[in-house]
């Protein structure tokens, strides 16, 4: 299965889905005009990974800023991962946030309240 690489722009995330390693990395800011259009290739790649590769997956999220529709897409992504998480293939989510960015931490924590996945929070300095 091919990796998915989406290069970062000023308003879309850098995405690297290494399907061999089972590592999905997302970083940057996301406020595109059409968030769904941006996230669709990632949802497609994830669906293929879950039905064909069927291995563990680590998701590293390092986000500076999300607009509302991008937040909705990230939540949907975590819900899909929640349905895939089992004894056979484990999901680990690492949510990195700038130490002084309480809003991005809160966004992640609110998602973690309702999603039954191991989500770990790590502050980092700018």
């Amino acid at each position: 299965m091919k990796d998915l690489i989406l290069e970062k722009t000023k308003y879309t995330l850098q995405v690297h889905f290494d399907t061999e390693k089972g590592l999905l990395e997302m970083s940057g800011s996301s406020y595109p005009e059409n968030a769904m259009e941006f996230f669709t290739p990632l949802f497609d790649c994830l669906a293929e990974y879950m039905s064909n590769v069927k291995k563990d997956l680590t998701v590293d999220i390092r986000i500076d800023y999300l607009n509302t529709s991008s937040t909705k897409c990230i939540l949907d992504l975590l819900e899909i991962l929640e349905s895939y998480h089992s004894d056979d293939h484990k999901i680990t989510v690492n949510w990195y946030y700038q130490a002084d960015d309480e809003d991005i931490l809160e966004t992640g924590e609110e998602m973690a309240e309702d999603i039954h996945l191991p989500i770990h929070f790590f502050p980092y300095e700018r």
Partner: protein
Amino acid sequence: MPDQSLEKQFQAIRDDNVILEMKGMLSQGILVSFVDLIQDILSKNQEENALAKKVFFIFVELYQNILHHSAKDISVKKSAMSAGVGIIQLKSSSKFYHISSGNLILFDKKNNFENHMNKINSMQPHELKEWYKKTIKTGSRTNNARLGLIDVARKSGFPLKYKISPYNEQYGFLEVSVQIQRNRDE
């Protein structure tokens, strides 16, 4: 002879501490430039990162609401460019940043919009949080205007001011104004 109305507008920019204002066709491309400028200005104002992010967030949500939801007249509908039509403004005072947006809204949508805004303004922070979480779970990925305004209210911490004035038979002019407190500890 100079255009008096432009001169008045320029004077208003100085009198009201307008940091940034854009009128007319608003596109995603222009937004990206605005975001760079806002980050630069807030950094020069030595604002904390957390406050700068709130200003940035609210500006983007109000701007993208114009982009996606402003009612458009015929000349804009004919344009190939994806854009909204409206006004967006960021200004500062000693204690607040103020972000305002203005655009046309179909009268048909007036009541729903007013109900939504009044519901937002009647809620306590914990109620807004629960409503936000419920709405984001059940909402669509493509139409998030209502969700966006709930989150704007949460980030602002103040009631959202709005006004819909008659424009013509079909449209009203919608103004939304949001404030963000500077120097929270003072």
